[in-house]
């Protein structure tokens, strides 16, 4: 059931990305609903689920854009590696690491997709691409992730408590 919900969410995000998102320009770039959805899911639900949801979201994005199929799957995959931050808990808050993951994933996405486009023969202006697209998209995606993350976290069922602790005591 959770993967069906993820599929519907990712599909809707992919459709939004190709229809409405290009009209939303902040700092000259458009937010990426698919990346934001996948990163937020990974940070809320964990690395295990991200291993399924991230490639699924990437595939749906690929199928609705002009990029070669596989580009977004590859470019979104660092999210799964970055989701380790959720378990490491570098700070008390869940929210700030999620924004950091979105920002870093945006940079990784831009670099990987530009690499793929260069490899298939497109003329990608790397300097301006990094300056005008990659760096601003880190900020813009993090800004929009701030709006998406909290409702998503609120809607997501709490994971079961593992081991001993306050959560397990309540369950008993």
């Amino acid at each position, binding site marked *: 059931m959770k993967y069906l919900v993820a599929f519907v969410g990712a599909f809707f995000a992919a459709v939004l990305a*190709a229809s409405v998102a290009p009209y939303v320009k902040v700092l000259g770039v458009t937010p990426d609903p698919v990346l934001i959805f996948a990163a937020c899911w990974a940070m809320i639900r964990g690395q295990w689920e991200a291993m399924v949801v991230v490639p699924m979201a990437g595939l749906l994005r690929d199928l609705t854009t*002009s*990029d070669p199929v596989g580009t977004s799957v590859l470019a979104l*995959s660092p999210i799964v590696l970055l989701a380790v931050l959720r378990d490491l808990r570098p700070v008390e808050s869940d929210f700030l690491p999620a924004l950091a993951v979105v920002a870093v994933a945006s940079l990784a996405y831009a670099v990987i997709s530009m690499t793929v486009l260069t490899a298939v023969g497109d003329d990608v*202006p790397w300097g*301006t691409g990094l300056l005008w697209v990659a760096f601003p998209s880190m900020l813009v995606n993090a800004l929009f992730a701030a709006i998406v993350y909290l409702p998503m976290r609120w809607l997501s069922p709490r994971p079961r408590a593992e081991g001993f602790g306050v959560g397990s005591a309540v369950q008993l």
Partner: protein
Amino acid sequence: MRLLWWTLAVVSVSLLSIALSESRTLYPVQNLSLTVAAPLENGLRELADPIADFFEGLFNRGDLKRENERLRQELERLQSQVAAAEDAQRRAQELEEALGVKESRPHDEFVVADVIAQDPSGVKRALAIDRGSKDGLDEGMVVLSKSGSLVGTVSRVYEDFAWLRLITDPNSAVNVVVLAEGDEEGSEARGVAAGDLGGRLSLEMVPAEAQITDGDLVTTSGLGGNYPRALFLGSVRSVEDKPQALFKKATVEPAVDLSSLDTVMVITNFLPARLAGP
């Protein structure tokens, strides 16, 4: 270890998919996915204008007043009541304009198509249209706006859909001629109109001795055989003239707002020289 296997699997499958996609093996799958997504994307694109207005207001004009918002909602409610009628009227007007272009270019054959999506990637400027190889479209075909100015070329063709590369795409380069305003002797300056990541159109490779000024008209030169001659692109906006430079540079204002295209026309009886064969 689990993560390592996952990474290897994802990278392998992605690279294989990219290779298959480049060899057009996955085109039917992409065509099918656009068939499913197109109605939803079309519906959402209708909502895009108010959303774009909202963000423009948020970031460019500061806070919006509550009263203004109430009036806007009231206006939207009223607009929704006449939306169907307006849409039909607009469609009829677009077809009339398309007919006008067809009359001005009697030797060209056109396929009229609706824009259904924009590529969300920041490093491309591309649009999806609801016509494909079934309608006679092929890669490299030239695309015009409904008023007849150059929009771009067809870059990918599926059975029922196609992707267009806009003239503002970083991969686009069009051989052009700048027609000096009021100069009837025709002192034309040749150059190349190239896109960039900012969605702008710049005029490059114009000889330093050429006389170009703001407002001069830019049309295709036909050189190279990739575009027909005399297609209108736009007008010169600002000229960058450095004393020691070999070439002049300028910015071109496209004749049509490429970010809000609804309908385009594909010239189907012109194939670029590089694809037409001997």
